[in-house]
C-alpha cells in the first residue's frame, strides 16, 4: 500500500451540517498541506468522508463503510451519539477514532482506539459548578436541559457538581429542542425566584430562552453551556443577550497559539470563511496528533500509534497542549466564561 487512508465520519447533512462540513474541510485542509510536504512516511494520504447525518443508525453504517475502506483512523463524529454508535465498530476493527464528543460515556469503556480531542462534560461541569457556587455565590440555581444526550449529560453533571459543592438547586427541567415556546417552564421558574438559570442545551434554544426570560421579567442571571457559544445566540436573544454568560473553551479567534493562528489563516484563505466553531479546531487537533504519532513511531500499526499517544509528551496543539490518559481522555482543560456585552460581543470574565 502506498497511501494512508483517513476517514471522516461527520454530519454532512442534517441539523448539524455546518459543523460536520467544517470538520471535513479542516481535515482536507490538513491533509492537503501534509501531502504538499511530501505526505506521511513518504506516502500520500487519502480522505474518505461518510455522512452520518447526526443519527446513530447512519453512524453505524458509516463505521462499517469506513472500516471496509481500510482507513487507519477516523476523525469524528461531531455528536457524542454518533461517535458512540460507531465506537465499538472501530474498536473491533482496530481503527483509531478521535472525536470531539463530550459525553462522558465515550471513554467509559476505555477502548484503546478512542481519543477524545475535547474535554468531557464532567470537566465543564466541574468548572461551571465551581464558578457558580464559589465565584458568583449564587444561592438559588435553576437548571434547564433538553432531551439530547449531550445536554442531559452536561446538565446532570452540573447538578451533581453543584450539589457536591453544597450549592442549592431549586429546579431542574427539560425543554424540547426547537419547540420555541418556553414561557411555561420559565414562568414556573419565575415563581421560584432564582438567582441564575443555567442552560446546558444548544444556542438555538438558549437564545430564545434568554429572550423569553427577559420578556417575562425574570431578573436572574443566565448561563449557557458550551453549545450556546454561537453567534446566532446573540441574534436570537436580541437586546436580551446583554449580560448573559457563556462557558466554553476559547473560540477559534481567541486561541492564543501561533499554530492556531496559522491554521485559521490558511482555513480562511482556502474556504473564505472561519471554521464554524471550536469543535472544528479540536477535531483538527485530533488528526494532527495522530499524524504526529505516525511520524514519531514511523509505524502504521494502530496499536503502536495508540500507545504513543497515551505516553507522549504534550504536543503543541491548535487548542493547547495535546496529551491523553489511558482511557483516551484528553488531559488538561481550558474553560473560560464570557459575558455578552451591549454590542453583542464577548468579554472574557473568568478563566
Amino acid at each position, binding site marked *: 500500500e502506498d497511501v494512508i487512508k483517513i476517514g471522516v465520519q461527520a454530519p454532512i447533512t442534517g441539523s448539524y451540517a455546518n459543523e460536520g462540513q467544517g470538520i471535513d474541510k479542516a481535515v482536507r485542509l490538513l491533509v492537503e498541506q501534509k501531502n504538499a510536504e511530501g505526505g506521511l512516511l513518504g506516502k500520500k494520504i487519502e480522505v474518505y468522508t461518510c455522512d452520518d447525518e447526526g443519527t446513530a443508525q447512519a453512524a453505524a453504517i458509516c463505521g462499517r463503510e469506513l472500516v471496509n475502506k481500510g482507513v487507519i483512523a477516523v476523525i469524528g463524529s461531531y455528536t457524542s451519539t454518533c461517535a458512540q454508535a460507531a465506537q465499538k465498530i472501530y474498536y473491533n476493527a482496530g481503527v483509531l477514532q478521535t472525536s470531539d464528543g463530550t459525553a462522558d460515556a465515550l471513554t467509559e469503556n476505555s477502548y484503546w482506539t478512542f481519543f477524545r480531542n475535547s474535554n468531557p462534560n464532567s470537566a465543564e461541569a466541574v468548572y461551571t459548578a465551581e464558578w457558580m457556587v464559589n465565584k458568583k455565590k449564587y444561592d438559588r440555581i435553576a437548571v434547564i436541559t433538553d432531551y439530547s444526550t449531550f445536554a442531559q449529560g452536561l446538565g446532570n453533571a452540573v447538578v451533581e457538581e453543584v450539589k457536591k459543592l453544597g450549592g442549592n438547586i431549586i429546579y431542574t427541567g427539560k425543554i424540547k429542542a426547537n*419547540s420555541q415556546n418556553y414561557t411555561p417552564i420559565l414562568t414556573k421558574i419565575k415563581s421560584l425566584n432564582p438567582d441564575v438559570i443555567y442552560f446546558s442545551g444548544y444556542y438555538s434554544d438558549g437564545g430564545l430562552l434568554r429572550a423569553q426570560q427577559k420578556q417575562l421579567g425574570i431578573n436572574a442571571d443566565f448561563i449557557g453551556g458550551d453549545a450556546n457559544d454561537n453567534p*446566532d445566540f446573540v441574534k436570537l436573544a436580541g437586546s436580551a443577550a446583554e449580560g448573559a454568560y457563556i462557558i466554553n473553551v476559547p473560540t477559534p479567534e481567541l486561541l492564543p497559539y501561533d499554530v492556531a493562528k496559522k491554521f485559521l489563516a490558511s482555513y480562511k484563505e482556502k474556504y473564505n470563511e472561519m471554521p464554524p466553531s471550536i469543535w472544528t479546531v479540536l477535531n483538527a487537533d485530533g488528526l494532527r496528533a495522530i499524524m504526529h504519532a505516525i511520524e514519531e513511531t514511523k509505524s502504521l500499526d494502530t496499536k503502536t500509534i495508540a500507545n504513543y499517544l497515551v505516553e507522549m509528551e504534550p504536543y503543541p496543539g491548535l487548542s493547547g497542549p495535546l496529551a491523553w490518559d489511558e482511557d483516551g481522555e484528553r488531559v488538561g482543560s481550558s474553560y473560560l466564561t464570557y459575558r455578552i456585552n451591549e454590542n453583542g460581543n464577548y468579554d472574557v470574565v473568568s478563566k
Partner: protein
Amino acid sequence: MDIFFQQIINGLTIGSLYALIALGYTMVYGILKLINFAHGDLVALSAFVGMTVFAKILGGEASLFSVIALFLITMAVIAVAGVALDKSAYKPLRNAPRLSAVVSALGAGLVIQNGIMLTWGPNVNFFPGDLVPNIVWNIGGTVVTFIQMLILVLSLILMIALYLFINRTKMGTAIRASAIDKDASRLMGINVDRVISLVFIIGSALGAVGGIFIGMYYRGITFEMGWQYGLYAFVAAIMGGIGNIPGAMLGGILLGLFNALIAGYVSSTWTDAFTFLLLILIIIFRPTGILGERVAEKV
C-alpha cells in the same frame, strides 16, 4: 397566583397560533377527507417568505404600512402555494384510495421542508425584529406584551370572520355541501373545483398569518419547525373534532392552555406524553372530538 395568570396568557398566545394553523387542517380535511400533512410546512414556508418579502420588497423598514403589506403579500404567496400544492399533489388523487393522498401529503411536506432548507440554508434564520412596538404591560406580576395581544386579538377576529363566512353565506354553505358530496354539489350548480381551491386559499392564508406570528414572536425560524407546529395544530384539530371549524379553534386554545399548565404545574419533562394522553382520552370518550358530529352510521 400570578404564575397562574401568566401561564394562562402563555397558553392563550400559543393556543391561538395552534388554532390558526389547525383551521387549515380542519378545512382541508372537511372537504377532501385528507390530513394535509404538508400544511405545517406551508406555515414554516410563510415565515421564510415573510422574512424575505420584508427585507427584499418592503425594504426592511418597519411601519404600519409595511407590516400590513408584509401580511398581505405573504398570505397571497402562501395561498398560491397552497393551491399549487393541491393541484399538483392531491388533485390527481381525488378518486384514489384515501391513504394515497396522505402519503402524497407526507411527500409534499418533505419537498417543502427541504426546499426551504435548500433556499434559505439549514441554519436558524432571523425574522425581522421590532415590527411592532415593544410594549410590555405588567399587571400585578403578570406580564403581557403587545405582540401577545396582537396575536390573540387578530387570531380571534380571523376565526370569527371565518366562522360567519362558513355558516352564514352561500359560498360557505357551498363549502359545507361540497364537503359532504361532491357530485351532488355539482348537480346543484356548485363549481366544486373552485370551492376546493378556495378552501386551500383560506386555510393556507390563515396558516401564513400563523407563520408570520411565529416569526414575529420567536424571531428564530428553522426549516424543520413546520413539523412541530403542524403536529400540535393537527392534534388540536382532532381534539376539537376534525372538519369542524369551531372545534379547531377550541382545540387549539385548549391545547395551548393544557400545555402551559402541565409544564407549569406538573412536569416539563412529560408534557408531550400528557398532551397525547389527553388527546387519546378525548378520542376514546368522544370518538369524533369535542365538537365533532356524532352521526351514527345508518344501515
